[in-house]
């Protein structure tokens, strides 16, 4: 067991190191001098040279990398161009993005799963056509455009909801007001994916042998649908949700841009635009670490459930 753990942790660390190196070199491949970005209107060559020196931009890449890793190992991700600690900035932004992600998942589950079940149960009936068509439209509508339409309607014309911004969760009502449009815009797209998956999965479950057996045993139709077919379909759905995490992150980035929400996605884009190397590196390191840790946890958890894995 110990050996297995060591191997997994080792592999995770290798991934992290490679990712950090790629990002380190990658951000420096983007044209645009961070010293000029920092200098704003001041482009006195002496000042730019000082800035480059201060952020070690005048040193060879490997030296910069080792220096950064050394500090990172001591828990110091450095300061960004605003002279604020990168770690603190990241910690304040993550919850905002998580809130959008979680709320839009909630929206998509609330819409997508019942719609999928209904469409499957009432196959070929008007409800089915309605849900299927709705899902197709949901798949075809670009989120960012829907966001623009929502802003035109609900914020500019009707004044029902604020057009942009974020209010912390200590003001729950204002917070929800600001989150409704982003969550719906992002959630409806996923609802369409969920609905389609739910429908096809329910259809195959309803046609499967064990459901036929259950029916033959005289179980009520409701019990067949919910206790058997539905439960089974949920497995497929959870798998799908996992696969959609990457797409969800892309969606959050665009949504945050449209609704002017200072979340993690917006932070990443701003950092790239400002060539804030320290911040970009911190952001990507945290993202990669999160990904690696989740996967590591999964591997470990799975090995407990299925001991054979440890041997192979």
């Amino acid at each position, binding site marked *: 067991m110990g050996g297995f753990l060591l191997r997994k942790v080792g592999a995770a660390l290798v991934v992290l190191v490679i990712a950090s190196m790629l990002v380190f070199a990658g951000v420096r491949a983007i044209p645009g001098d961070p010293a000029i970005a920092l200098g*704003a209107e001041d*482009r006195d060559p002496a000042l730019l040279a000082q800035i480059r020196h201060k952020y070690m931009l005048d040193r060879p890449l490997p030296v910069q990398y080792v220096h950064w890793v050394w500090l990172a190992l001591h828990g110091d991700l450095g300061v960004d161009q605003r*002279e604020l600690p990168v770690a603190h900035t990241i910690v304040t932004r993550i919850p905002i993005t998580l809130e959008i992600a*979680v709320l839009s998942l909630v929206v998509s589950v609330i819409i997508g799963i019942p719609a999928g079940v209904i469409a499957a149960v009432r196959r070929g009936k008007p409800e089915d056509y309605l849900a299927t068509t709705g899902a197709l439209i949901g798949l075809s509508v670009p989120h960012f455009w829907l966001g623009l339409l929502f802003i035109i309607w609900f914020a500019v014309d009707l004044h029902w909801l604020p057009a*942009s911004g974020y209010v*912390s*969760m200590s003001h729950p009502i204002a917070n929800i007001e600001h989150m409704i449009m982003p969550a719906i815009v992002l959630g409806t797209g996923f609802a369409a994916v969920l609905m389609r998956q739910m429908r096809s999965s329910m259809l195959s479950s309803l046609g499967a042998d064990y459901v036929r057996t259950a029916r033959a045993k005289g179980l009520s139709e409701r019990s067949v649908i919910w206790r058997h077919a539905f439960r089974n379909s949920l497995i497929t759905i959870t798998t799908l949700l996992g696969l959609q995490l990457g797409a969800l992150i892309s969606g959050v980035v665009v949504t945050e841009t449209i609704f002017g929400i*200072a979340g993690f996605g917006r932070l990443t884009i701003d950092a790239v635009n400002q060539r804030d190397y320290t911040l970009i590196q911190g952001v990507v390191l945290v993202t990669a670490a999160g990904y690696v840790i989740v996967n590591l946890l*999964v591997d470990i*958890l799975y090995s407990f459930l299925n001991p054979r894995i440890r041997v192979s």
Partner: protein
Amino acid sequence: MNVIRSRIAVIAALALLVVLAVTAAAQAGSRSPQKEGGTLTVGLTLGEPDALDPTLARTFSGREVFLTFCEKLYDLNAKAQIVPQLASALPTVSKDKLTVTIPLRKGIKFNDGTPFDAAAVVQTIQRDLTLTGSARASEISPIASEQAVGQYKVVIHLKTPYSPLTAQFADRAGMIMSPAQLNNLGAKFATNPVCVGPFTYQNRVAGDSITVVKSPYYYNKKNVHLDKIVFKVENDTAAAAAALKAGDLQALDGIDSTQLQGIKADNKLRIIKQTGLGYQGLTLNIGNKNGLLKGYSNVGTPIAANADLREAFEMAIDRKAMNKVVFGGTVLPGCTPISPSSAWYDSTVKCTPYNPTQAKKLVAASGISNPTVHLMVPTGTAALRQAQFMQSEEAAVGIKIVIDSTDFVTSLSKADAGTYDTFQIGWSGRVDPDGNIYQFVATTGSQNDSGYTNARLDLILNNARKASTVEARQTLYRAAQKIILNDRPLIYLYHPVTRAGLSTSLKGITMYPDTLLRVAFATFK
């Protein structure tokens, strides 16, 4: 097997999400409440402020925020004259112009309660001169030494006479930082800056907002009415205007021309406007072949090699139509580096008239068939609209414009490197004409991205720096502008007019020719 594995992945990921969300909620709970009677929320449209450290700060929007919590030795008034703020009077200058004495206000306190005195001023000046990356060092570089004489007098010795010193002390070089906090935080002063001011820094959410609260120590506390000011970074002009209309913001420091109509129509909002000191225009790459300040070498593009083609290029542009179409009539068309809002504006400098017929003839006479000009445009909707307008105007006279949309930082790098034809860019402007001209067109100018060189112009500009009378300088700048307008290293197009949107429930907000929105002494009706 894969299904189970993925399921666990999902469950683990969701569990992690929940844990983080709960932590987040706990953290959020400890934050300050959002809306109170006396909270003013101001939208910043000109980008996010950089470090809130007067020694390091470089951005325009940073200056707007500093106005509320970092007072300066001197300030500007509505007529752009310099008046004392933390100093008690204008400085006295010795006969040899090498010693400057600044008297200070007595009995006032920093926002941490420590006393403001000459020693603090000396410490700030020393830091501005020596801290790595100081953006102030070059502004006050003629200072040889500074000393506190008694508690309330600072004597500054200069290496050479330097009359702009007072003007520098009316900007960030004059912001005095609390010595206690400097000793406490050192180079990390920006994490919790403490100065003298009507408000004191409370917190900052990077990329989003900066919050300041009323100071209990401010010497003029009775005129401060708001409890709190929140500066929100607004990246999208339409979203910012919508937030102003919705009441999420009570003040917005700049309104995009496309949003003006909607805000004018709103009877809960009013607009104040001020023509700035800057300009917007085009930089033409003429001799920047090897990079900024690496010597003149004609780049050989049609527009660099052929002065007539440059003239045709300018003649094809109808500045008035551009103002109408692109900016809804909200800017001030112009063709010189000096804004009409400046005392140095010279109306005898004549523009190249809009003349597409003549432009067509010049293009034909140039002998270059279908000249193509690349136009580098920083990403942004208004900039892109302007570029498309020019594209269509130039097409009408036979010049093909290829728009190279480039993100802002990259465009600056490319401009310095000389890897561009023409660059759509402007300058925020300075009170003194030298600040709008010298660095862009003098052979050794630090932003001479055009790679332009003209010995006669260099001589004129250097003489204008030394000339002591206003008349002499005016004559010299007139001659300089005529040369620039004839050679066209830059083509000036218009002067921006800043419009701020304010809730009608607010009063006491002003804007001077520096176009900074001054909100510290505002009050809600």
